[in-house]
């Protein structure tokens, strides 16, 4: 479970995040929806302790990120905005490297790596060097290495960004699978349809603030709209920076 309380972060004069609070529960998919530049990536970066918030608190499974960032990172599986792979290593070697950094035993790494390779349907690319991988292959490898340590909480920053239709569908299936395994899945997106199709709970961010935090049905009710798309546009006030 991930709890975020009144998170704030400024870069110079820019208020990137100004008071974001929400809770992402286990066994649910929580979507962080907002237009480009709304502060989604910055919020996530504070969650996985890459950045220190100016104010506010992050709790992951009850652990305060400011107190024990390493324990927080251990209980998170993160697909960051930056998906860089090591191009002179094979996909499997990339995964193994992260397993070792997680401090796992070699046989655990091997078992978990093979399971992920099957679950993500990437057997055909596992032994290939990642140089020249397609966007979809890169994302698969990046997700596999992020989840090698079997984390309870999964953070995905725009996981379907740049994927084709088939790869997007596979990604959504995989996220459902993670949810069914009882994990807490938190992902960010600027694609309304995707959030609507996947989420148990939607946190809408605009201009660094949370403007709505509801289940999809409640969101419709609150805005008096019949489609989620209309509801989002109404909440954010504009459709700029969003995609259907």
């Amino acid at each position, binding site marked *: 479970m991930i709890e975020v309380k009144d998170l704030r972060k400024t870069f110079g004069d820019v208020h990137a995040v100004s008071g974001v609070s929400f809770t992402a529960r286990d066994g649910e998919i929580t979507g962080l929806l907002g237009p480009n530049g709304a502060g989604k990536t910055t919020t996530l*970066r504070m969650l996985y302790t*890459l950045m220190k918030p100016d104010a506010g608190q992050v709790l992951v499974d009850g652990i305060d990120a400011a107190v024990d960032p390493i324990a927080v990172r251990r209980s998170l599986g*993160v697909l*960051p905005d*930056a998906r*860089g792979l*090591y191009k002179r290593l094979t996909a499997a070697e990339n995964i193994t490297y992260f397993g*070792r950094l997680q401090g796992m035993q070699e046989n655990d790494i091997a078992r978990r790596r093979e399971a992920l390779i099957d679950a993500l349907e990437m057997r055909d690319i596992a032994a290939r060097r990642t140089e020249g991988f397609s966007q979809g292959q890169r994302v698969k490898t990046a997700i596999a290495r992020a989840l090698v340590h079997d984390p309870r909480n999964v953070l995905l920053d725009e996981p379907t960004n740049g994927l084709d239709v088939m790869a997007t569908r596979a990604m959504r299936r995989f996220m459902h699978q993670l949810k069914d395994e009882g994990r807490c899945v938190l992902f960010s997106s600027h694609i309304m349809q995707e959030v609507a199709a996947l989420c148990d709970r939607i946190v809408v961010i605009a201009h660094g603030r949370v403007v709505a935090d509801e289940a999809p049905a409640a969101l419709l009710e609150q805005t008096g709209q019949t489609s989620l798309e209309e509801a989002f546009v109404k909440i954010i006030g504009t459709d700029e920076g969003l995609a259907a």
Partner: protein
Amino acid sequence: MNAFTAVYWKEVRENLRDRRTLINALITGPLLGPVLFIMLMNVMVNRELARADQPIHVPVIGAELAPNFMSALKGAGIDADPAVADPERAVHDMRADVVIRIAPDFVKAWEKGQSVQVELVYDSSRRDANTAVARVRSVVESYARREGAMRLIARGLSPSTAWPVSVAERDQATSQSRSALMFSFLPYFFVLTVFMGGMYLAIDLTAGERERQSLEPLFVNPVARWKILAGKLAAICTFSVISLLLSVSAFATAPWFIPTEKLGIALDLGLHFGAQVVLLMLPLIVLLAALQSLVSAFAKSYREAQTYLSILMIIPILPSALLSVIPIKPEPWMYAVPLLGQNLGIVQLLRGDGITGQELVLCLAGGFAAAALAVWATALMYRSERLAISA
């Protein structure tokens, strides 16, 4: 496997697969110095030998006035060439190294027993002509002494009357110290090797990771950043140590390719020398690895880091250049200055003087203190938020 070893082995393995890094660390870096050195030395030695042994041709103006002098020149391996019209022009245009001009009143003055003039026209800024000039000058002078002595004897005087003081030279240079003079730029080659050996790795492990956007995912792992840095630094050091070892081994073979005995110099670049060089260089290896990482961490891209590092590469030249221009008497504190200490130490080893325990301790202590500082600064840089954010 702990985080340090995981990072270390991954970096070593990944870079062993990179041809550019390998060529730089294992071929260009370590072998460029020795090959250049051997080639330069051979060219130099052969030119010197050629000048000293072989007859040289010198245009002489007024040769017909002094047949005895001409035969003295010929006896010393200097062949008189026909006169040239404009000797100053000939020297300037490099058609002749030196031109001898005998004064037109030579015969008259000689018969009266007066001093006569023999002019040597040359250009002292043309260093390659200096050997020829020196040979001609010494022949002229010894001819003059000999003739002077004859005249004194003819008048019933001892030749020593005319030379109350004679110079006896006692050159304290050993054959090894003479060679050290010629090889004073050798320390720079070792520093350069260490620099080149680690450079591409240092760029790849910081600026490269950042450019490829793999630094952010790496830092998401539950590992303290200093451990990641330590693994990376160890990998850089490994490559530069291998470079240095290769370079020292290559230099050890140099005496086989250089005709040192013909120059009367001794060149000891063997195991003992090599081991001491590696020991002296150890702090520099860590220092340079940290500095290279620090500089690369400021760069946003591989290319930018490369530009910064080629500027950084100039710094190690300074002590070598300084020492060859201004010969200074080494003071103890100088050994504690990184780069300068290594330079003095290696030159001393080349001279065959050896290096005292105190100098060695100063050298290592100063070097490692600077290295610790650089590592600390790099660790601070690694802790910054800015570093991981690629875009």
